[in-house]
């Protein structure tokens, strides 16, 4: 339990992806079964333990200490799980169990506890554990470790144990259960690959590279097919022998949030496509609309009616018993057209193929797409098989130009790791209010898009123009006469009730430093609001 607790603490404070991978891989390689498998399940969200409500936790601790002292403590720490882990009184030495329970023992005790004796079992475990182990136990029972590690990253770390590629791990993943003994044995070369016992498994997705400067000059347009790049989320719909599953592109199962779609998966096969909302083919909703349906555990009938989802199909990976992935793209496409024709047209349609003669014609289509929910074009080699991962060459994405806006730097925060001595995370705003009473409203935050040299320049500017400091954050001089104008590039805008400005940017980054531009000439909030109301073909907003 101590090793798991230490792992959680380090992961939460380690910003670098490589650092997290190293910590995870080291943990998996030095921790015995079943603890490492249970830890993996806890991180990927696949560990099921009856939840304990915060109120119960509070009751347990109040039975053991002065409520006034607990109140002071909770006020100071601010997090219930952490407070309880710290103030929980150590039992007298003669009553304390002689060893800290292992993660396996903790999970076993919690899973076999009945609803009525759950609190007593939890109290016993907390008595037996040290401070950091107590914190980990409380996090397990109150749900949500929140350590900034995705299931995908955890699988990447598993790949670090041996020579198996992460895409292979993703393919067997959904057929396995905690504590994943057969998986670890395979990864460490001690056993064969686990049998694909389960059906409707995920197939690793094929991804593309962005078009770079000389890419297109080197390839022949006649060898490539093009289609629109839709602005939804990439999904895989798999149905086998009556078992239906919808996966995200990283292999997370998301069927639960889309019962309307799953109901319509009346086929036997595996489809690759874009999840969108609307009524195809006439109406395709924006990404903002789609967001109403994302990250939900359950979905109300009203929500299903207002924001119906459908899949715009790109590819067919499996048709009945036949694996189509080795076939060339054009053959798969022909099969896809026959396959989709048999499905409910309100839930599945085809992503059209775009005819084009040369790259400049396609470039023109990319810049002026016929629909606002298109974010560019995909270019796919006609003979390409469907390959896992991101091979270089067969597939390219060529996105439309981003929107841009000129905003004023308002706050800067120190970065992490390599950037811990730089102010590298920037909050920027645009002007709002009537003439003479203009003020800046923050519209976003960005921490990349600049070169190392530009970072040094902004850092110096921040240090020289600080007006206030709050911990790691500095407030920077920004008024009509003083301020650094940043050209911000972004992919789109969503309405937001959480932000004062009412807008939230997608994928904002710094595209240029406008040392030349006076702060008063930065953009106004109305420019962004107009974009929100009319999400038409992109033009520069600034």
């Amino acid at each position, binding site marked *: 339990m101590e090793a798991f607790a230490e792992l959680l603490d380090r992961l939460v404070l380690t910003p670098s992806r490589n650092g997290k991978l190293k910590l995870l891989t080291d943990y998996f390689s030095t921790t015995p079964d079943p603890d490492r498998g249970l830890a993996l399940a806890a991180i990927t969200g696949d560990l099921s333990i009856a939840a304990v409500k915060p109120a119960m936790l509070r009751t347990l601790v109040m039975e053991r200490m002065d409520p006034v002292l607990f109140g002071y*403590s909770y006020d100071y720490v601010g997090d219930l799980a*952490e407070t309880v882990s710290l*103030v929980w009184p150590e039992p007298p030495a003669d009553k304390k169990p002689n060893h800290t329970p292992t993660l396996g023992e903790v999970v076993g005790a919690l899973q076999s506890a009945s609803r009525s004796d759950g609190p007593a079992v939890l109290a016993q475990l907390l008595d037996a554990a040290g401070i950091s182990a107590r914190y980990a136990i409380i996090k397990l029972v109150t749900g949500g470790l929140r350590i900034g590690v995705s299931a995908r990253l955890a699988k990447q770390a598993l790949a670090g144990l041996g020579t198996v590629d992460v895409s292979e791990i993703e393919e067997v993943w959904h057929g396995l259960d905690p504590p994943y003994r057969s998986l670890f044995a395979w990864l460490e070369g001690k056993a064969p690959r686990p049998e694909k016992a389960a059906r409707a498994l995920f197939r690793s997705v094929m991804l593309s590279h962005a078009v770079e400067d000389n890419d297109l000059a080197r390839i022949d347009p006649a060898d490539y097919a093009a289609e629109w790049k839709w602005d939804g989320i990439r999904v895989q719909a798999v149905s086998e022998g009556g078992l239906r599953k919808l996966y995200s592109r990283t292999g997370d199962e998301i069927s639960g949030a889309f019962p309307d779609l799953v109901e319509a998966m009346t086929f036997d096969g595996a489809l690759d496509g874009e999840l969108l909302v609307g009524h195809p083919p006439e109406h395709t909703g924006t990404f903002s609309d789609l967001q109403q349906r994302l990250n939900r555990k359950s979905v109300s009938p009203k929500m299903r009616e207002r924001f119906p989802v459908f899949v715009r199909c790109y590819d067919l990976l499996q048709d009945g018993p036949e694996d189509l992935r080795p076939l060339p793209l054009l053959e798969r496409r022909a099969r896809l057209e026959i396959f989709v024709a048999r499905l409910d047209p309100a839930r599945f349609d085809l992503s059209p193929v775009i005819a084009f003669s040369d790259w400049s014609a396609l470039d023109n289509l990319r810049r002026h797409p016929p629909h606002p929910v298109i974010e560019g074009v995909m270019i796919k080699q006609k003979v390409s098989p469907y390959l896992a991962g991101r091979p270089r060459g067969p597939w390219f994405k060529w996105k439309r130009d981003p929107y841009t806006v000129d905003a004023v730097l308002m706050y800067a925060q120190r970065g992490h*790791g*390599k950037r*811990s001595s730089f102010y590298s995370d920037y909050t920027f705003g645009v002007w709002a209010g009537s003439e003479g009473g203009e003020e800046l409203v923050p519209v976003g935050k960005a921490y990349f898009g600049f070169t190392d040299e530009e970072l040094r320049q902004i850092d110096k500017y921040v240090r020289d123009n600080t007006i206030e400091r709050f911990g790691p954050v500095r407030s920077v001089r920004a008024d009509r006469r003083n301020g650094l104008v940043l050209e911000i590039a972004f992919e789109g805008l969503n309405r937001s009730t959480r932000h004062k400005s009412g807008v939230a940017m997608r994928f904002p980054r710094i595209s240029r430093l406008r040392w030349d531009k006076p702060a008063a000439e930065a953009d106004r909030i109305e420019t962004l609001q107009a974009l929100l109301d009319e999400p038409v073909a992109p033009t520069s907003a600034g």
Partner: protein
Amino acid sequence: MRARDLLHPRPEGLYCPPGDFFIDPVKPVARALITHGHSDHARAGHGAVLATRETIDIMGLRYGEGFAGSIQAATLGETFDLNGVTVGFHPAGHVLGSAQIAVEHGGIRIVASGDYKRRRDATCAPFEPVACDVFITEATFGLPVFHHPDDRQEIARLLKSVGQFPESAHLVGAYALGKAQRVMKLLREAGFDRPIHIHGALAKLTSYYQGRGIDLGDIEPATLEPGAKSDFAGAIVIGPPSAFADRWARRFPEPISCFASGWMRIRQRAKQRGVELPLIISDHSDWIELTETILETGASEVWVTHGREEALVRWCELAGIAAQPLHLVGYEDEGD
């Protein structure tokens, strides 16, 4: 005589009317008794200073010779008569030279403990409880949430990380007086025998510790020729906590920021500062040690100075001990 007549707070600090002296005054006064060398307790500009030899030396290093009109050195265990008031110096275990000051007159003994800790620390003399009527205690970590773990376990975590990330420099923030040298000593005790690199702000005090016979091994300045970042791969670099947010830190490869402080017990504190590897090592007492020390002194009354007074006062109430906050101003609540 009432205890309040023997010692009470004034804007300048804690004052003893019959002896006509202050303890750790925050403004210049005619006669000052100083518990230890941290800058919020030991200030320059007093008429006369009475403190341990080490505290006087440390003040000299910080403020230069002539930081006070006259200086008198006290040995731990020694007593003085100041206008009929008996004053004694006893080890506080906080940093090198730190002392509790016992003030006795008219049958009452008050102990002003300054800052103190109860853990073993090879860089200073251990705390000795002094029986008294009134015990004046700090409350920096005066909340039941503060439990300092075994410092060897914290150093082991640091060394484990150094092994896991050999391409990185581990930057350990530690206060220049006491904490930094204690971390060095703990690293040596744990068997780390490579050179330890330090920020320039630590140089004077560290060589003073070494001059007092505390063996810290090979200590080298963290300076380098431009463009040779890899020199510090795998190194442990100790500096004042503020330095790592500074441009100074840019010379180190793949830095991992660490901070040795009792505050690192609270995750949010570590997060706010951007600390990646918090090391819970404190030069103050934790909650259990504060409360046990109060009981050990046998004091019937407790006065609580800087820190989180209210929780410690509440604990005293529950234990049947009279207690009140002193509301002294000018001391850092956050230093550790």
